[in-house]
């Protein structure tokens, strides 16, 4: 050296401080007396990159020298058993892998031969012995590379003859093909299932790194080196050094604790991490290089940055695999695969420990459609809620009854809960969520649910619908209002989902009896359709028309209603020229009921019959629509005083109701009650009693002794039967019940006046004129508020009161 290091350092540093353009001039000036120093610094300035790569390469050279000096490769043509080496295809720290072909010419077969230096096959737990075990175990699995044979050469080199896999390493395969997460997971599942298979044969892998997982050109996963790595680990464990791959090794492999299936689970977690992120766990952290592998494990939870784009569920799955304590990991590979499948099918992932809200979130995600259908099924089962068209129009009386009835039966609640929980049985054990709790949480969750605004709106709308279905109108209104507010805030383009939200709100107002608000909202719906130029030849559009028509009918605006439903029918008949669609059956039904309400009985029967035959043709006899048509036709004939015709239709109904709704269902009860009532009008008291009492029994089961409109109607009917047949004792028994119930605010005046009237009838029959008079007067007072003065019922009461008054004066009672 013609310069001191101190000088070199000073000039070099100063030079680096100068802008690049001035460095040369600076050197000329500074080193004018030392050309060697100048030359050296000029070289140094340009050396950054090549020097860096030189030293990296030098490190590799040293490592390579350490690793392979001892173990010269076999050249092509070397014979190993029945095979001839073609070429070296892989080289590791201690093993070489060759491609070889059968040399006896028996049949063409390419194999891979892996050979290991003699020292690893010495000792009683040698790799060789282990490999033999594996040969004995005969692992035969499409995702496991076959091990054909194992042996030792004369100079002690152990070789393993394996299926030759022409493919890519799994990590390269996924990266090169830019596989989607789903595809990566599915690939991983194949790996895991192969490992699970081996576990069933009591073979651990213990070196599940990416380079041991190949994917063939046809996409078949192949696991390499089963059993061989196990053997290596065992054979060398005595010197206190574990011989796996440190990056993926489980903590127990470092500490020489027993390896188990959980060790493979750990490594699978590591592989999963790599497949999802392209990196091994903790790989991207510079600092980790300076600390121990154990520390890496400890720090894993705080080093999840590399999992940034991976969902928290998959993170939880990986975390559970990578748990430090084997007992904290998945108990088996099967459990791990199950959880990944859970994830893929939107079921709750067991690794996520965070309870209910999470489960609901998953449920909602998985089952947006199912929630809707659950709502529909629930609605058809719920006592007294009107959503299903078929149940909506049976009779005005029934509808009122339904709307005001806030009770949701326990049975229905449980049914709905079962439906929700059936989605995830393992979570339902011992869980005492009520439907409302469930909905409340789902709803709250949906607020923070990360989804597109459209999906979010749809979810909110669904929740609104569900609340309405379950009779929680207040909540339904709140939810639907917030759905709309959300839609406006999120600036969602007016689309079907938005229109549906408005429509739900309209239906909600309708069910509440706020017909004017409902009407405004429905007009809004129709405007929105126009705004987005929504095609009229579309079943959503016609469905909205029908809702509107039905609403107008409720408001007794028969002309507009008729006009609109006919418009809907015209469109639907154009949509389905063969006219074999159930939606048309609905439309005919609505048209029929409008005619019915207008007293146009012939037209009503015409359309209801059309609807009936469509329902029966398309859906068979046991269908709510069939039942609704039969009931309504019967009702029309009764109005027209054609009781015999009415009876032919009504008689069919109980069987259908039992089939469709089951024995103990309010709809079934209603059907029995209607038929009983018809018999009552026909004065066939025995048949009337049979059906009415059946209806009463069903309702008692559903509602117990709680005040309920249906129950009191049933009681009233029964009292009428007993009054009519002079069975005073029975009549009195039911009358007491009815009177007691009539005190409840749940009961409407409409039912109360009948109970009072019946009380008057019975008491009069028993000669208790004072009491009779009292009840007749009660009935009259209330009736006057809701009926016209010339209503026959008013007239009847007035007559009775008059009669009793005169009786009183005749007998001279006080």
């Amino acid at each position: 050296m013609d310069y001191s290091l101190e000088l070199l350092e000073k000039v070099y540093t100063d030079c680096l401080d100068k802008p690049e353009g001035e460095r040369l001039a600076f050197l000329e000036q500074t080193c004018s007396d030392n050309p060697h120093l100048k030359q050296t610094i000029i070289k140094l300035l340009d050396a950054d990159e090549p020097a860096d790569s030189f030293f990296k390469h030098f490190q590799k050279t040293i490592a390579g020298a350490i690793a392979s000096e001892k173990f010269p490769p076999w050249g092509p043509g070397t014979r190993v058993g029945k095979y001839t080496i073609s070429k070296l295809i892989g080289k590791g720290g201690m093993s070489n892998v060759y491609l070889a072909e059968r040399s006896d010419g028996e049949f063409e077969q390419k194999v891979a031969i892996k050979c290991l230096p003699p020292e690893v096959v010495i000792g009683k737990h040698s790799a060789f012995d282990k490999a033999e075990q594996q040969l004995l175990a005969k692992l035969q699995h499409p995702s496991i590379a076959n091990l054909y044979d194992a042996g030792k050469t004369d100079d002690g080199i152990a070789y393993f003859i394996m299926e030759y896999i022409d493919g890519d390493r799994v990590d390269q395969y996924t990266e090169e093909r830019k596989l989607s997460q789903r595809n990566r997971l599915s690939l991983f599942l194949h790996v895991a299932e192969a490992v699970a298979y081996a576990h069933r044969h009591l073979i651990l892998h213990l070196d599940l790194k990416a380079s041991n997982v190949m994917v063939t050109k046809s996409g078949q996963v192949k696991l390499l080196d089963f059993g061989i790595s196990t053997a290596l680990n065992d054979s060398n464990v005595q010197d206190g050094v574990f011989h796996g791959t440190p990056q993926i090794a489980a903590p127990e492999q470092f500490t020489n604790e027993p390896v188990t299936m959980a060790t493979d689970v750990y490594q699978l977690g590591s592989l999963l991490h790599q497949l999802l992120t392209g990196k091994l766990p903790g790989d991207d952290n510079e600092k980790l290089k300076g600390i121990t592998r154990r520390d890496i494990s400890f720090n894993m939870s705080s080093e999840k940055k590399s999992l940034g784009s991976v969902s928290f569920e998959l993170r939880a799955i990986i975390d559970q695999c990578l748990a430090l304590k084997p007992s904290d990991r998945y108990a088996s590979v099967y459990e791990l695969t199950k959880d990944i499948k859970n994830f893929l099918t939107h079921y709750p992932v067991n690794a996520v420990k965070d309870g209910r809200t999470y489960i609901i979130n998953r449920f909602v995600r998985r089952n947006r459609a199912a929630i809707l259908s659950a709502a529909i099924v629930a609605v058809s089962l719920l006592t007294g809620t009107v959503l299903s068209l078929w149940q909506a129009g049976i009779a005005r009386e029934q509808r009122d009854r339904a709307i005001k009835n806030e009770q949701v039966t326990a049975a229905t609640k449980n049914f709905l809960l079962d439906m929700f929980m059936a989605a995830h049985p393992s979570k339902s054990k011992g869980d005492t969520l009520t439907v409302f709790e469930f909905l409340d949480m789902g709803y709250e969750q949906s607020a923070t649910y990360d989804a597109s605004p459209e999906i979010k709106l749809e979810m909110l709308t669904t929740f609104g619908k569900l609340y309405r279905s379950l009779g929680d109108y207040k909540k339904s209104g709140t939810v639907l209002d917030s759905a709309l507010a959300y839609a406006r805030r999120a600036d969602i383009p007016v689309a079907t989902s938005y229109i549906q939200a408005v429509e739900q709100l309209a239906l909600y107002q309708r069910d509440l009896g706020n017909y004017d608000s409902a009407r405004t909202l429905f007009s809004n719906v129709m405007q929105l359709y126009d705004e987005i130029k929504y095609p009229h030849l579309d079943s959503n559009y016609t469905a909205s028309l029908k809702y509107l028509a039905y609403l107008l009918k409720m408001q007794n605006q028969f002309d507009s209603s008729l006009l609109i439903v006919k418009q809907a029918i015209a469109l639907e008949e154009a949509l389905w020229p063969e006219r074999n669609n159930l939606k048309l059956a609905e439309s005919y039904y609505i048209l029929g009921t409008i005619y019915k309400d207008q007293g146009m009985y012939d037209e009503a029967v015409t359309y209801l019959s059309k609807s009936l035959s469509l329902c029966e043709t398309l859906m068979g006899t046991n269908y709510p629509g069939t039942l609704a048509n039969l009931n309504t036709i019967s009702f029309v004939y009764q109005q027209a005083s054609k009781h015999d015709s009415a009876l032919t239709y009504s008689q069919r109904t109980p069987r259908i109701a039992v089939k469709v709704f089951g024995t103990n269902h309010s709809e079934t009860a209603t059907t029995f009650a209607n038929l009983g009532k018809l018999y009552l009008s026909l004065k066939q008291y025995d048949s009337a009693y049979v059906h009415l009492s059946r209806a009463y029994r069903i309702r008692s089961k559903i509602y117990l002794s709680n005040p309920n409109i249906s129950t009191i109607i049933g009681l009233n009917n029964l009292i009428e039967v007993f009054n009519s047949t002079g069975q005073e004792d029975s009549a009195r028994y039911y009358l007491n019940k009815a009177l007691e119930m009539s005190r409840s605010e749940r009961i409407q005046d409409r039912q109360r006046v009948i109970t009072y009237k019946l009380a008057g009838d019975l008491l009069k029959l028993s000669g208790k004129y004072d009491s009779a008079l009292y009840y007749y007067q009660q009935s009259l007072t209330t009736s006057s508020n809701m009926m016209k003065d010339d209503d026959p019922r008013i007239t009847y009461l007035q007559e009775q009161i008059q009669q009793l008054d005169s009786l009183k004066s005749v007998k001279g009672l006080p």
Partner: protein
Amino acid sequence: MINASVSDELTQYLIRIGKGDVEASRLAFPHIYSELQRLARSVRFKFYGNDTFNTTAIIHEAYLKLSNQDGQWQNSSHFYCVAAKAMRQVLLNAARAKKTSKRGGLVEHAPLEEYHNFIVLSEATSEKLIDFEDLLHKLEQQDEVYGRIVECRFFAGMSIDDTAIALKISPATVKRKWQLARNWLYIHLS
């Protein structure tokens, strides 16, 4: 198996090294040296098929082994620093052994236990290492810190910051001197 007493002894040395005790460094050296020498060969096994195998990995392995499991080694930099020097020595000895032993068959004929104690390098690598050693020695003669920095950075793969901590100098100095040493060694080696 891990020798607890060696580990405890090392722990004491490393604490002293942390306080700037040069003598402790000298005392820790043989323990780490013998461990590295032993490990260098056997560690290969665990890296088979893995291209990340290098001297850093061997040192890392030694750390794992010697640090025991009680996590007492608050600052691993001191260990790595001593180990880097040991690694340098292990390699130099192996390179010299290769050069002087024209037989070259030592490995093949040595009994297995003996084999465990040697690192075997190729002739070309041995020569390269010796050249490298001579050049580094020149730098060290003028400024001892250069040798330490190259040991830490090259043999132990330590970061600038860790090297700075271990050598009790500023990271900027480490960076500057490492850049100079690396480039200087490179232009003279190639």
